């Protein structure tokens, strides 16, 4: 029914889900699988070599985020880092208080641990975000109570790319602590999406804990970092060894750690230049879509300073996201949707719902998250087919959002 290309081009627009591993990263990891395979806790040569490789990686990561090596904890994922930060603080400081502040558009890796804590008697305040997904610093500060032990706010949102004012919250929090002569609440940020595009300097951000994920910065999956500021105590979740300062037991994933550090190093080097290039591509994508397809809406902030450079989230009125996604997949184009049909819950994206989008709008959303191998040609290729796909699905669709009332109540 739709025209088919002679050759299917593989276009990956789902970097917020995960990124391909950079070839240099793979190369840096290779020796640690087969040659330097020793357990870093072992005393003989290949054990010591593995240990020193980890130390070096720790130093690299620490320098990039402006921290000390002993502040870096290597974990098994961004999710694990978030869990360790939240449960770790909650369990270690519950005698001080059982109140935590967060925002409703956090990733599930933060929301689900918070829900679990709620079951255990903690109280969570979810501060509201505006229609672009942004939280206001004053609202966060206002929510602080004497028993608040932790604030957890994401650096950038994974679905709509909103950048939260982390440095500003951090600064205000320092002032609050000083005025009230207290060390609480601690401040955690999930920087999984921000890494590679935004400044990760923990001194500038004034964060006490920060999560980074290797699988989103062209590093290996199954690797993560939790930065914990000196003097901040957290309770471990995994016991059984003295690794990672007894906070995360288990033999270290040596190749993973090496790869993650290498990936972060590369991201740091290419940082601002790559951010600018990808932002231009994102702007081009949105410009093309809004020019060639009518009744579309950009979800989240305008493309610019307030938005993650690689994120474009668009609602196509009257069509359902999964249907579009599957059609695009036929052309080799990969992206994701906020539609319920791809979620476990049959509920459309809670992020899109939280910024005030109606069910119909949330169901018709596609997220394109760009990355370093994407070019203008990828977008041009997609734009050859996307208008046709949307047109066909609109023809099939009985919904017309232009008419205000539901047909049932005409």
């Amino acid at each position, binding site marked *: *029914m739709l025209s088919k290309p002679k050759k299917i081009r593989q276009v990956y627009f789902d970097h917020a889900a995960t990124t391909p591993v950079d070839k240099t990263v793979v190369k840096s990891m290779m020796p640690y699988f087969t040659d330097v395979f020793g357990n870093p806790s072992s005393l003989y040569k290949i054990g010591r070599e593995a240990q020193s490789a980890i130390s070096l990686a720790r130093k690299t990561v620490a320098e990039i985020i402006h921290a000390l090596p002993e502040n870096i904890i290597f974990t098994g994922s961004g999710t694990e880092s978030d869990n360790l930060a939240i449960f770790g603080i909650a369990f270690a400081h519950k005698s001080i208080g059982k109140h935590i502040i967060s925002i409703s558009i956090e990733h599930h890796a933060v929301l689900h641990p918070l829900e679990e804590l709620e079951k255990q008697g903690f109280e969570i305040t979810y501060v509201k975000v505006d229609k672009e997904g942004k939280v206001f610093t004053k609202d966060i500060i206002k929510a602080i109570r004497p028993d608040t032990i932790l604030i957890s706010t994401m650096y950038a949102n994974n679905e709509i790319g909103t950048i939260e004012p982390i440095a500003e919250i951090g600064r205000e929090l320092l002032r609050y602590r000083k005025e009230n002569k207290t060390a609480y609440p601690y401040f955690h940020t999930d920087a999984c999406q921000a890494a590679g595009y935004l400044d990760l300097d923990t001194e500038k951000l004034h964060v006490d804990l920060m999560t980074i994920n290797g699988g989103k910065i062209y590093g290996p999956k199954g690797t993560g970092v939790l930065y914990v500021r000196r003097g901040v105590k957290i309770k471990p979740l995994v016991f059984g060894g003295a690794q990672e300062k007894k906070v995360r037991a288990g033999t270290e994933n040596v190749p993973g750690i090496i790869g993650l550090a290498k990936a972060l190093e590369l991201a740091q080097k290419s940082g601002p230049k790559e951010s600018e290039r990808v932002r231009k591509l994102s702007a081009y994508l949105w410009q093309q879509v809004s020019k060639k397809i009518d009744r579309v809406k950009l979800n989240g902030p305008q493309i610019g300073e307030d938005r993650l450079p690689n994120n474009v989230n668009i609602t196509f009125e009257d069509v359902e996201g999964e249907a579009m996604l599957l059609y695009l997949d036929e052309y080799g184009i990969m992206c994701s949707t906020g539609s319920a049909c791809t979620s476990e819950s049959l509920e*459309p994206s809670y992020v899109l719902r939280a910024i005030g989008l109606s*069910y119909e709008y949330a169901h018709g959303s596609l997220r394109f998250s760009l990355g370093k191998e994407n070019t203008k040609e990828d977008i041009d290729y997609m734009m050859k087919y996307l208008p046709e796909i949307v047109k066909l699905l609109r*023809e*099939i*669709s*009985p919904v017309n959002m232009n008419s205000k009332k*539901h047909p049932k109540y005409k």
Partner: protein
Amino acid sequence: MNKKKTTKKSTKVKKSFDVRGKDGTSGWLYTDKVKDHFFNPRNFMRFGEEKKFKFNGYGRVGSPACGDEMVLWLQIDPKTEKIKDCRWRTFGCGSAIASTSVLSEMIKRKGGMVIDKALKLKPQDIMKELGGLPDRKVHCSVLGDKALQAAINDYFRKTKQHDRIMVEGAKVVDPDLKITDKDIEDAVLDGAQTLEDIQKKLKVGASKPDIIPSIEELIRFYREKYF
């Protein structure tokens, strides 16, 4: 793909699929037939065709849970009561589109299905025709038979056969109490705002706490839809 086993008593599709295998072994788990109907939908109402297409039965149904909505136009021969032709439109995911498309073929087949038989079509029949659907997607095909019933009821109304109108088939939310999403919708339109309000009216979910989330979802949906 395992072969389906069906017994005479039940047409329940034994083997269903998830879009993504839980074990991560397979990507696309829709059957080839689902894919074919999804990528090449049959009998849908094209733009501009609405005015030309003669119909005497029209049905529109929507399921809030997955954001699916479906419209069906039927051309029923009053003498033979066979469905001579039909058109449809569906807002929904892959399986929703495929199941409507395959339904349109089923009812047009062999000179058209007699409406009494069409009224007896079950979601399972549509699923069987498609060769199975992912577990979570079953509710999409439930819509097809409901749209069909609504369109045939409309035909009865238009031909003044009021005694033949069937009570609207709705999706049962609480199997113990036989409470449907229609009941929830009515309760919300009647002013119910919270789960407690609904439970006062319907006692829904009292025996089954696990269905509470889906009820709350319905309440939220209808509240946003109408208020």
